[in-house]
């Protein structure tokens, strides 16, 4: 390596919002979309599927097995396979990442629902809660910490995995890695890594905050003890 500095600040200033498709801001925006949509879709699908798996035990083994297989597939593999189906669109990244999210969230929802203590469930029955209301008002809220734990893992992984999509032409900030490599110029690579890690840390922090807001009783119990 010659004496090229690790970061050229003027390059960042010039390319933050240069109006073109390679502006850092544009890449960041598409990165956010491609990273967070899979998490939202995944959560929407995983909640009912997880509830079904917790309700009908026989369903869980095959589902968990399938999710285990999906999770072991490298992201580049799934991106490449979907490339032939959905072409050069954001869906080629969003669909595989949704599958990864499901692989993390379905077990989390099932574990969460199983973590509901039996006496809590029985109290709810004794108070006259019917199954649906019991699920929505008692079991799911009690399961929140475990589900959110899974959601944090899924969100952070999704944010970092989007960048691999750059290899198939849809990678948000990952495109900065390709750009930096092709021009043997480290600044875009550093910018990409830093922005992705910051985005991941920020999202993780927001989810921790959400957990505090959604489970006020866990704090009450701690301060009472």
């Amino acid at each position: 390596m010659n004496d090229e500095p690790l970061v050229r600040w003027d390059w960042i200033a010039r390319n933050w919002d240069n109006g073109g498709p390679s502006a850092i801001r544009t890449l960041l925006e598409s990165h956010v979309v491609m990273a967070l949509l899979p998490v939202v879709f995944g959560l929407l699908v995983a909640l009912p599927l997880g509830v079904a798996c917790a309700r009908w035990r026989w369903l869980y083994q095959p589902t968990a097995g399938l999710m285990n297989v999906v999770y072991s597939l490298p992201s580049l593999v799934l991106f490449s396979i979907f490339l032939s189906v959905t072409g050069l669109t954001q869906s080629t990244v969003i669909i595989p990442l949704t599958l990864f999210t499901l692989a993390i969230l379905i077990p989390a929802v099932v574990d969460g629902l199983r973590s509901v203590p039996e006496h809590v469930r029985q109290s709810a029955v004794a108070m006259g809660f019917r199954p649906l209301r019991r699920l929505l008002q008692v079991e799911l809220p009690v399961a929140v910490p475990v589900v959110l734990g899974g959601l944090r893992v899924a969100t952070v992984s999704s944010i970092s995995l989007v960048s691999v999509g750059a290899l198939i032409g849809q990678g948000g900030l990952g495109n900065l890695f390709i750009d930096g490599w092709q021009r043997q110029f480290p600044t875009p690579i550093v910018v990409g890594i830093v922005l992705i890690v910051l985005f991941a840390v920020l999202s993780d922090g927001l989810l921790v905050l959400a957990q505090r807001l959604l489970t006020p009783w866990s704090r009450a119990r701690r301060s009472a003890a």
Partner: protein
Amino acid sequence: MNWLIDFFGAAANWSGPDGIPARILEHLEFSAAAFLIAAVIAVPLGLLIGHTGRGALLIVVSANAARALPTLGLLVLVVLLIGVGTVLPVLIPLVVLAIPPILVNTYEGVRGVDADLRDAAYGMGLRGGQVLFRVLTPSALPLILLGLRLSAIQVVSTASVAAFVGLGGLGRFIIDGLATKTYSDVIGGAVLIALLALAVQLAFTVLDRVVVSPGVRQVR
């Protein structure tokens, strides 16, 4: 389906230094090297931190960093800064990314051992080292193996991405196929990597059956 026939049916794809067998061997070679180095570093470290309880912060940090750090970015940056030519620059990020799953799960495994079991071992007069190797390690084995499995799969996956910075192996089919728009190569390479990842998964399932003490498995 036609792509698969094109790829696997072509005789040229089965011989020579860029044929399927050679690429599979290359892929296994890099992956095994990175995985073994990572395991040699992470298993003892995880056992030590879990046993002494010192340095737990390192575990938390590495667990989070490993998930948030983009593999492609790390690969590209390290190889760009150190320079291509040898395999070493590619091996470094591969090892770095392989360490956290092993470290975290080994630590969790040792920490998660029933405190009564540990106390009983000390009560029977075992020393610290003996407790660690004769009691804690066998009990933590399922989680240690889980960590090793996740790490091995991660390595196979990262090694495919590393084809972008010039590493051989199965990723070459995907990267070169994309560059030349030969989609049969892209799909064929993807299928081979997927099969390799599943083989790793299966190997660890079998290993788990063989080495984990039946008593430990019952408790789980």
